[in-house]
């Protein structure tokens, strides 16, 4: 029973995203341990690339992990703990009490859910994901006009598309099949005469996310496995 519960817990953790990198915490290998007792008590340990990783993102990942696991069938208690982090004690204590970000840093912040921070990075992630889709269409021979005229229903069935749709839903941007496939960060459709400039900025945002993800992966490898795998992870 606890084995199947553990499977469910890991699946739920696959849906917890590092907001800064827009990748699941599982594929980033931030989940260092996941234990489920026969009574259904779950303990998840998170290990970030450095002890100085930003506390706000660290909190979001830990809180999201906790929320993702709570309420799963077979799960009784949930403990999520950050390991080896500057502010780990504060964040772990707040999570243990079921409190938000202000509970972790009383007097230092009035922002309990960090939604503005999350949204800023959702917008960046949407740009980066759209960039990948757009470049693939253009490489496949589509014209500028075809790209900007395309609808969500025209996009290929693939994880990149699914992620775009999810981000659009979270950002309150229309995501029905007839909506424009490519939008500006504010949700307005991308127009043909904006495309070349948009591609430049979107590619830069994507490169930044990818490079950061690369550095995070490398640091984690160096710190915990002492060998550097130089293979790059394509997005």
């Amino acid at each position, binding site marked *: 029973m606890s084995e199947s519960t553990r499977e469910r817990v890991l699946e739920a953790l696959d849906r917890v995203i590092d907001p800064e990198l827009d990748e699941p915490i599982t594929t980033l290998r931030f989940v260092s341990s996941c234990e489920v007792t026969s009574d259904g008590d779950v303990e998840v340990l998170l290990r970030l690339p450095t002890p100085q990783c930003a506390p706000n993102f660290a909190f979001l990942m830990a809180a999201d992990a906790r929320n993702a696991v709570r309420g799963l069938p077979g799960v009784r208690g949930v403990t999520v703990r950050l390991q080896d982090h500057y502010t780990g004690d504060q964040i772990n204590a707040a999570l243990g009490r079921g409190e938000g970000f202000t509970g972790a840093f009383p007097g230092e912040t009035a922002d309990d859910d960090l939604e503005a921070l999350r949204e800023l*990075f959702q917008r960046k992630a949407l740009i980066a994901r759209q960039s990948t889709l757009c470049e693939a269409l253009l490489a496949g021979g589509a014209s500028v006009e075809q790209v900007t005229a395309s609808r969500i229903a025209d996009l290929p069935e693939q994880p990149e598309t699914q992620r775009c749709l999810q981000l659009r839903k979270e950002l309150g941007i229309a995501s029905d099949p007839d909506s424009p496939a490519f939008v500006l960060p504010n949700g307005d459709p991308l127009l043909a005469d904006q495309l070349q400039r948009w591609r430049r900025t979107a590619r830069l945002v994507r490169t930044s996310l990818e490079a950061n993800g690369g550095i995070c992966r490398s640091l984690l490898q160096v710190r915990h496995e002492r060998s550097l795998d130089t293979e790059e992870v394509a997005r």
Partner: protein
Amino acid sequence: MYEKNGEKYFIVDGHCHFWDASPENWVKGAEVYAKGWIECFHAYMGLGPPETHWPIEKFMKYSEEDFVKDVFEDGGVDVGIFQSTYLKEWYADGFNTAERNAAMAAKHPGKLIVNGRWDPREGEAGLKQLEEDAKRYNLQGVKLYTAEWYKGSRGWTLADEECKPFYEKCKELGIKNLHVHKGPTIWPLDKDAFDPKDVDIAATSNTELNFIIEHVGLPRIEDFCFMATQEANVYAGLSVVIGGLMFARPRFFAKVMGELLFWVGEDKMLFGSDYGIWEPKWQIDGFIDWDYPDPDHEEFSDFPRVNAATKRKILGLNAAKLYGIDVPQELRLPDESGTPGAKEDAQLVESA
């Protein structure tokens, strides 16, 4: 001077350190931070080639002989710029203070430039100290480290009102190069603490000063590029870009370099080894040979091309200009050749 394939390059290492992070220097009660900090730096060293890795003991405190061999002899660095970083809440005598750096510089006349520092939270006393430091160390530049902890505060921004008298003081004292580093910053806690918008505000209001953004604003390269393309006085410090990506993630390195060459331009990019995180030799040697892995591939084909002049500028000539360093005639470029960065206004993510 670094010589390769019969070509000679004038090298300015725009970002190097001579630090003491040994346990003897850890502040009582702050050991966890002092130890964690240097261990984190040590992990970054792991992103370079294995044969250049040091044991943690040496990494915590390397000797003057190590520095001379690695930077001057093997690295061929003509002039190194010390970026003083204090961190006195964690390291009793400071991590690498201007004083410690100046003692080293005095033994190597003409080879090392000492940059000072200031912190707006120190107010009047800080201004007075800056004046004294400027006189004592002949300061042309400062390192601004916004992640420094100070009496319960966990950081500051360049847009803080308290910074204004410091900018004025810099102008008065002839300190024109401000190297900005956000560090592993955590403040403001609930915002994106790496957002370089504060640098943009400071650079716009202080056009007489140069703002060199260390580590190209990593992890916010995109925000940095959008800013640098609009501000004539904002420069890219390449420390960590070359050291952290060129060996470990060569394809990402090529993309990041392509973006920087496009948005910032080769005239505003400065090499820095970040020694002792990484030795300069492998970085300089690899960068001289570097090109896009597949220059005609669509991923790279519309980035600016790189040539010998690009590398000469980045490895030394750009920094020599900012610091008034006299470059021997035979190591200069014949003329002002090259491709400047994009001039168009960039569309910021949140405003687009």
